[in-house]
């Protein structure tokens, strides 16, 4: 019998493909389901130092019309030869026609003996798998519970009411940045946008290597990259104006994570960090991250790189400093006909075992697509950083000019009034306080407002925003001070990028990515108790639409600032 984790993967994969293909969920609609996965482990009576694990998978809700257990068992055994399971609740050979909305119509149960450490690892891997699924299927919810020798722990995996980015083919990427990086340890929450803003690349067709005998697809495989920087900074500072790590996430058709076997890891092709991305053009030196910590709340990437500084020193922990470049690779399958379950199943199996070869076969097109997408994201970041530098330079010019007049004045009353206004004892302190005052009064509006996080303005500021224009007729350029804008405006400027729609299910959300139920403890491999997860902070309600329009109007002209930089 294969391990618990592998069995759960394959079953979930089967169910999701079944939901999509057999039930006839329309192509663009998001899957909306709820599933209970419970593992109960007791000391095995047959094996020493092993736990007898009973895994139950039970969908909740009315969705299993057409699900035939025997057919499922036969098909699942094609990938899990030693898999065996039983069904409880309804006859095995009948269709699930009973629709009991609040009651589990049936349960799939399978049993396996595993060592405790293996079980714990499997549980962590399963949880990461569930987390990854919910990142692109925001309406699927998993209730996961683990009971080991009577000690129960539960977690819910779901992203209800979190902002998402509708992609295609019935999947949507969750853009809540807390899933991808930890909240930075310095800086205020106001310095960061709570969302990532992915840039979608163009899809490219993948070729099947000639030596893959027996592979005969009725359609074609495509790869669509998406990239985003996380967190999205509103306020640039030198500390965070750098990329410190890269995370790569692999998804197959229908947004199912591609999980490879230890024997044939599909991430081998990414071990060569420059195989698909030329990092040198960004002056980055990346090395694969060897140790991916399973025991963390973030979505686990399939591949991770650390960025080393140009001096060659090891970069610091990505969780504490710098941006993480998130790269999502969506492999999809297209044929001229509605996808058949077994066909998709076969494609998944193919990708699970041969993704590396397929990507290598299509190396140049994949490289172009990924490079282009990463270029877009990093270019935006670069421009925003540049704009910030220009902004800082302007402030210094203003400060120095004022200080020059004040210090050069022969009018003592004028000097006294100026110093007194800023409560400065001397002109040196005056200069410092002046700069600080400028920073405080001028920087805040320059924070990179997302339309997703516009705060309500005070009435005075609203009037100011609506008052006479503040630009010279020469159209003197202003700095690009924003990276956190709706991608649609920027994407439409490039004909190669997908048009996507960013949606927010609800303006207010307090749901955490996971919400384990206290207080019972679960045993992690280290024996520590699991931590309760704090709920995500409420999101501010969308701001004034007029300010959105004005701000977008302003930032649309920011590119003109890219002429010679003023000296600080």
């Amino acid at each position, binding site marked *: 019998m294969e391990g618990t984790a592998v069995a759960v993967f394959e079953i979930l994969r089967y169910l999701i493909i079944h939901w999509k293909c057999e039930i006839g969920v329309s192509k663009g609609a998001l899957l909306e389901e709820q599933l209970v996965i419970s593992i109960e482990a007791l000391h095995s009576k047959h094996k020493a130092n092993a736990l007898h694990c009973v895994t139950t998978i039970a969908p909740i809700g009315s969705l299993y019309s057409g699900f035939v257990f025997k057919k499922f068992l036969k098909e699942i055994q094609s990938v899990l030869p030693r898999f065996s399971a039983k069904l409880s609740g309804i006859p095995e050979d009948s269709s699930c026609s009973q629709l009991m909305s609040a009651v589990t119509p049936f349960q799939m149960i399978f049993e396996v003996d595993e060592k405790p450490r293996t079980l714990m690892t499997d549980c962590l891997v399963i949880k990461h798998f569930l987390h990854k699924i919910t990142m692109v299927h925001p309406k699927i919810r998993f209730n996961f519970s683990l009971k080991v020798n009577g000690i129960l722990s539960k977690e819910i995996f779901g992203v209800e009411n979190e902002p998402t980015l509708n992609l295609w083919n019935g999947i949507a990427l969750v853009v809540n940045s807390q899933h991808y990086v930890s909240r930075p340890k310095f800086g205020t929450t106001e310095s960061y946008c709570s969302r990532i803003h992915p840039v979608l690349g163009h899809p490219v067709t993948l070729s099947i290597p000639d030596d893959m005998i027996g592979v005969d697809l009725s359609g074609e495989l495509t790869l669509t990259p998406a990239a985003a920087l996380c967190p999205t900074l509103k306020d640039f500072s030198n500390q965070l104006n750098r990329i410190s790590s890269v995370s790569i996430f692999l998804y197959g058709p229908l947004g199912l994570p591609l999980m490879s076997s230890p024997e044939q890891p599909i991430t081998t092709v990414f071990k060569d960090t420059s195989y698909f991305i030329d990092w040198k053009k960004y002056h980055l030196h990346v090395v694969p991250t060897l140790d991916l910590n399973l025991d963390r709340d973030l979505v686990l990437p399939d591949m991770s790189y650390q960025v080393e500084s140009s001096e060659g020193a090891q970069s610091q922990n990505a969780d504490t400093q710098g941006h993480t470049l998130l790269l999502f690779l969506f492999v999809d399958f297209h044929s001229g006909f509605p996808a058949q379950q077994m066909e998709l199943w076969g494609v998944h199996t193919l990708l699970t075992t041969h993704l590396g070869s397929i990507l290598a076969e299509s190396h140049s097109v994949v490289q172009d697509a990924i490079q282009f997408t990463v270029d877009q994201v990093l270019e935006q970041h670069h421009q925003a950083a540049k704009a910030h530098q220009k902004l800082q330079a302007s402030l210094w*010019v203003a400060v120095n000019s004022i200080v020059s007049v004040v210090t050069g004045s022969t009018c003592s009353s004028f000097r006294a009034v100026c110093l007194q206004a*800023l409560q400065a004892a001397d002109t040196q302190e005056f200069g410092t306080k002046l700069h600080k005052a400028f920073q405080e009064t001028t920087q805040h509006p320059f924070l990179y407002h997302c339309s997703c996080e516009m705060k309500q303005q005070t009435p005075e500021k609203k009037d100011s925003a609506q008052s*006479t224009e503040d630009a010279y007729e020469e159209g003197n350029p202003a700095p690009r001070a924003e990276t956190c804008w709706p991608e649609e405006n920027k994407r439409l400027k490039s004909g190669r990028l997908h048009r996507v729609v960013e949606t927010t299910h609800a303006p207010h959300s307090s749901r955490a990515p996971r919400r384990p139920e206290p207080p019972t403890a679960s045993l992690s491999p280290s024996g520590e108790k699991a931590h309760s997860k704090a709920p995500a902070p409420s999101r501010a309600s969308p701001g004034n639409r007029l300010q959105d329009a004005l701000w977008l109007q*302003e930032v649309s002209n920011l590119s003109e600032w890219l002429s010679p930089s003023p000296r600080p």
Partner: protein
Amino acid sequence: MAFAPMGPEASFFEVLDRHRTSLLADLRSAGGEPATRETRLASSSEVLASIENIIQDIITSLARNEAPAFTIDNRSSWENIKFDDSVGLQMVPHCITRKVKSDSPKSIQKFALILKILSMIYKLVQSNTYATKRDIYYTDSQLFGNQTIVDNIISDISCMLKVPRRSLHIISTSKGLIAGNLRYIEEDGTKVNCTGGATAVAVPSNIQGIRNLITDAKFLLIVEKDATFQRLLDDNFCKKMSPCIMVTGKGVPDLNTRLLVKKLWDTFRTPVFTLVDADPYGIEIMCIYKYGSMSMSFEAHNLTVPAIRWLGLLPSDLKRLNIPKDSLIPLTKRDQMKLDSILQRPYVTCQPFWRKEMEIMADSKMKAEIQALTFLSSDYLSRVYLPNKLRFGGWI
């Protein structure tokens, strides 16, 4: 006191003399004795105090945690311009302003540059030194980006402080030339005599500092282009038509050339005529001398000479003189747009003859340079065209 070589006989200038008399009568009826009007410059202390007030306001805003901003008259809006026949284009008293904010991505750099130039002006005035706009630009060309930005900021500061540019100790480089019956002494004591025959004198950079102006000129001819001006010099026009003065701004005139023309008019009430190409840009240049420009309307009183008359080249002259079509040039789209724009301007309504000439141009869709007259003869301009026009009152 006649100091120039003899030109035409006195009767040649009868029409011109009558024209001058008429102009003086108009001035008297408009408001009192015609008198020279000295332009009052703001004192250094006034300028320094104005700048200090601005700085103080900015610091006060910051102390109140408010983002400071400059409020500047919008010099580029026609809504802020009114037309007065006696002055030309000038800014309305309560005009629309615009804010240059420090908390806007679009204007923060402009805000900083205004402060930068204000601080430079402050230093110039304090040290009683002068600099040109070009000098200002080159103190930090990377920071400023281009000369136009500097020029506009200086004009805005001049408008904001309500003082002429010279009071800011910023002088503009003159590109104009003068020739003819004129002598004066510059501020530094240099004696200048423009009666040079084949050579011209550069317009001085300090017009306000000129003193002891002396001339007998019966008329002042403003020539649009340097090429035409040089041609007239070569043809000894100033001698043949003596006593007279010729000025060229070499295209769109700089401030000093305009100030000089204004000063000559104010001092001597010499009739002023323009000789421009029969094209929309020539007409616009003429309008700048006569009525001023929108961008400098805040200083109209110091710069405009509404008494200017259009001598040539008139579009109606082209037909009258049978200038062949080969010598004419079709109006471009830009020309058409420029012509349409001029026809919309407020001062054209009180110049029916000008309007008519422009309509002739619009109807024919053709334009011509002064050089088109060389079709008739190489010296037709100086030998026939201009003398006849001046003698028989061929101006509008």
